[in-house]
């Protein structure tokens, strides 16, 4: 069960971040030239792959599983709660939804104001913006892949497990978003980012609670079945919170 959750969570989280990175690459490519934008994005992807490789191996090799699960569980809980909280506030209308079209227009406008820098086909402003954008968006993905993958244990899907399986989910998302970006040639504004963030937030919270609790010494009564119970409980909490906050927001507006 945890193998499938690992793959799905990694895929969804990566899709959200890759959609945001694609907006930056498109804006950079259109205004500063594709060569600089694509080289910057490719180099950032290599750096992210190295981070996953080095830290993934180091964590699973040098840290005992109980301690790893305590630390990783804590981080996953914090991260999952931040994502879930943001998506609840967005659903309730208390926080603006992520608008890729608007971000794209702003990026294009900002980048068009800067005069060309560099020689030949290489534009260093374009390179830097694409590199930084992909690296920063990808760091969250790398973090999920490393932490989730290193704690997931040996249960696998299609011969892959742990960090390898989480990486496969992230790479699948990268390929899918890249193909969509190449075909459409514009930001993927219609991707239901908030729903995906809500789902990933729930999964990270459920696994964070389970692993963090195990690391602290808890023996879960239903074994891994507790993860499902946690998912359902947190899902009901999230859904309920959206409705309560939405009603509160409407009451405030009409008052």
């Amino acid at each position, binding site marked *: 069960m945890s193998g499938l959750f690992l793959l799905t969570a990694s895929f969804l989280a990566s899709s959200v971040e890759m959609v945001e990175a694609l907006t930056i690459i498109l804006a950079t490519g259109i205004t500063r030239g594709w060569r600089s934008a694509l080289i910057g994005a490719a180099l950032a992807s290599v750096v992210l792959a190295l981070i996953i490789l080095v830290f993934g191996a180091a964590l699973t090799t040098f840290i005992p599983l109980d301690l790893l699960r305590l630390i990783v569980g804590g981080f996953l809980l914090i991260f999952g709660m931040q994502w879930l*909280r943001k998506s609840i506030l967005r659903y309730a209308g208390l926080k603006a939804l992520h608008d890729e079209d608007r971000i794209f227009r702003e990026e294009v406008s900002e980048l068009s104001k800067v005069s060309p820098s560099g020689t030949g086909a290489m534009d260093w402003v374009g390179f830097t913006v694409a590199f930084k954008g992909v690296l920063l968006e990808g760091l969250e993905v790398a973090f999920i892949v490393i932490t989730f993958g290193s704690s997931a244990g040996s249960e696998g899907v299609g011969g892959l497990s742990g960090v390898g399986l989480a990486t496969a989910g992230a790479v699948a998302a990268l390929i899918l978003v890249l193909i969509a970006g190449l075909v459409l040639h514009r930001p993927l504004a219609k991707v239901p980012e908030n729903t995906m963030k809500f789902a990933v937030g729930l999964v990270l919270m459920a696994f964070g*609670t389970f692993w963090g609790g195990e690391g602290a010494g808890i023996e879960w*009564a239903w074994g891994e079945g507790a993860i499902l119970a946690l998912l359902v409980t947190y899902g009901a909490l999230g859904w309920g919170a959206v409705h309560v906050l939405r009603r509160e927001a409407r009451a405030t507006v009409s008052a």
Partner: protein
Amino acid sequence: MRYLRSFWYDFIVGDSWETAVGVVAALGATWFIIEHHASLSEALGPLFAAAIIVIMVISLIRK
């Protein structure tokens, strides 16, 4: 380095510091109790999950 610092700050603290403090406190308290009363290791599971829910609700109330 400035961006990495900003990433870690956004990641751990974000716009709700209560979440990070609450999670660390809940994990620390659970570990401490089980270290001293191992017989509670099964009973503390639901309580730990309830503590996480309370932290989430507090962070939403303090939006």
